[in-house]
């Protein structure tokens, strides 16, 4: 490297050449990214819809069919058909006899690195969270990303208490994540050693979503049941 390095001191850099190079490379790179983004967008959207479909049935064990409902700004539920865009949707799952077994809800919040997007199933009958799956996360590989696969952690969500107060306006006990091995109450989530912040984040995301969504569901659960055949 010594030969070319010495040359710089003799030959002062030409600003125009540097601007031209960086600008040119920048424009070319942006074009490449935009082109790839446009070209892959339809496939990615379809893949995500398929993954969501699988996740819905995963977090509502025993569901055989499902129906989508839109949550309007005023908190009312209306039946929803067609391609979802930006609507807040919930998915009611029915077993093979057509009875409502649970409701799947998508939500997201701040994780350790970036937004964590997850979906969870809630049974209005049991007043419990009955399943949870992380849809998207960029948590630290090997530590925070245990929230996706760690079996002990996921077992927390098989029957997580989310009982509403008698008037159905709030949760009796807000869901919370505690340190690994310190779970004492049915509404607590046993965290993961080495992934304390990520497991807490999942707890916080679930708490804020259940606090807004469950009262809405409570008031309109008959609407979801009306679809029972």
């Amino acid at each position, binding site marked *: 490297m010594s030969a070319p390095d010495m040359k710089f001191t003799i030959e002062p850099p030409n600003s125009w050449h540097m601007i031209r190079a960086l600008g*040119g*490379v920048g424009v070319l790179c942006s074009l490449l*990214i935009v082109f790839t983004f446009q070209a892959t967008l339809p496939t990615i959207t379809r*893949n995500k819809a398929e993954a969501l479909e699988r996740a819905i049935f995963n977090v509502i064990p025993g569901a055989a069919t499902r129906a989508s409902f839109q949550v309007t700004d005023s908190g009312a539920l209306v039946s929803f058909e067609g391609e979802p865009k930006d609507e807040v949707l919930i998915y009611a799952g029915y077993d093979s006899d057509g009875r409502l077994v649970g409701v799947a809800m998508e939500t997201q919040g701040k994780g350790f690195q970036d937004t964590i997007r997850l979906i969870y199933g809630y049974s209005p009958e049991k007043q419990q969270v009955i399943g949870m799956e992380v849809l*998207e996360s960029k948590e*630290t590989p090997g530590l925070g990303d245990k929230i996706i696969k760690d079996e002990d952690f996921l077992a927390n969500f098989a029957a997580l208490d989310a009982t509403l107060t008698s008037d159905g306006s709030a949760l009796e006990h807000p869901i919370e994540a505690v340190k690994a091995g310190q779970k004492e109450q049915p509404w607590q989530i046993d965290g993961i050693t080495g992934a304390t912040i990520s497991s807490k984040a999942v707890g916080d995301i679930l708490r804020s979503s259940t606090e807004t969504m469950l009262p809405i569901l409570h008031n309109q659960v008959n609407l979801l049941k009306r679809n029972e055949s």
Partner: protein
Amino acid sequence: MSTSNIAPAGSNPVMDTDAFIKGLWRENPVFVQVLGMCPVLAVSNTAINALAMGVAATFVLVMSSTLVSLFRNFIPKQVRIASFILIIATFVTIVDFLIQAISLDVHKALGAFIALIVVNCIILGRAEAFASKNSLGKSILDALGMGVGFTFALLCLGIVREVLGAGTLFDIPVLGDGFQAWSIMLLPGGGFFTLGAWLLVFSIMRERKKNKAVAK
């Protein structure tokens, strides 16, 4: 810019295929140069992850070497690193979109490591040490060789770790039901053990070759 008059180290105009072959073995980026250890240790827990990571890194390596080599007389020395990083980051973003389009499960399994390809020193290393000084054809061959060598090394680790750690290979059970999986092999510690063992094997082989050459 007049970097083209500098003879690239170890280049031989007669043997162009050497640009490809050296990355596979003699200058293998992982086992000989010991570069790019972060993805090597982290994403080699299963053979399929290792393969996906290797292919993704190879794609970025080949595409960025191509662009760097094409523009080698257009980019002034002073801004070369910034330009190289910009080019590499572009292809990492592209590969991220492509993997999402091919399989979301693979994307989920590789997680943050796709984005981290951008700091894989093999790629910037080849751009700086080779592609910026050599013709397009040679640079592509060099990048391809290094990429295949990297993938080969990842697979060496991935296969051992998956077979011992889960009793499967590419998700197909190979060791029977009686096998008690060594979970440690799937954890970071297993990555270090396996890498250490492979480095030992390769050192012994190199040593033997050297001794033979001396004996002759």
